[in-house]
């Protein structure tokens, strides 16, 4: 399981490179949470451009990180989702609570344009 984590201003950028299922979600969650807690970031950007597969364990993982960002008054952004993941994003209702952008740059721009 690959995971790149980078701090970009007030946002923590996490770029996993694996299939997201129950097994990998547990490890992603642990590593992202550890980095987020250590940082003073408010927002989390999950870059899914290298994800070829995700199931409902991934949805749970995303919602959990969304809640962590919310606790710091921040938001969660998902970028680079492929078509399959887009279907899951809609079925799950994630679409209602989580902002989806095409690229990491778009997510960073959305964060800069926030008014709070």
């Amino acid at each position, binding site marked *: 399981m690959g995971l790149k984590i980078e701090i970009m201003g007030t946002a923590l950028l996490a770029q996993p490179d694996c299939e997201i299922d129950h*097994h990998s979600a547990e490890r992603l*969650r642990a590593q992202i949470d550890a980095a987020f807690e250590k940082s003073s970031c408010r927002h989390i950007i999950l870059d899914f451009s290298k994800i070829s597969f995700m*199931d*409902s364990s991934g949805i749970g993982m995303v*919602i959990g990180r969304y809640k962590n960002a919310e606790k710091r008054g921040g938001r969660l952004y998902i970028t680079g989702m492929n078509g399959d993941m887009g279907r899951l994003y809609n*079925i*799950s209702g994630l679409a209602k609570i989580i902002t989806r952008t095409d690229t990491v740059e778009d997510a960073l721009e959305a964060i800069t344009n926030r008014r709070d």
Partner: protein
Amino acid sequence: MNKICVKMESLPENISFARVAVTAFISSLDPSVDEVSDIKTAVSEGVTNAVIHGGADYVSMNLSYLDRTIIIEIADTGVGIEDIEAARQPLFTTKEDMERSGLGFTVMESFMDDVKVESAPGEGTTVTLTKTLKNRE
């Protein structure tokens, strides 16, 4: 008609094996990329449930097809489900603390043609997933 039975230890690392196994099994039917993705996701949901909720030592997966209809049976001999109808509702989960979203059955239902659940407390669970592949030109 073709059939394969896989018995695996109930371990998180075997969930990806189950996805690879079903993908390989149906490949001779030349499914579309979308069909493969739907079936892989549904299998991942079923096997994950058996591993995390069932709690038995083994999960078995019977894969078969007749013409272009694929039938996948995922069975465990674990704790079983009390109220199947409630369990199938979107967002219903008994493991909220584990960050489960209660969407596994909803995903299986939206990605497959039919989802049958047989279960009783203490008697394990069998989920049968069916999908007929489109004819390819």
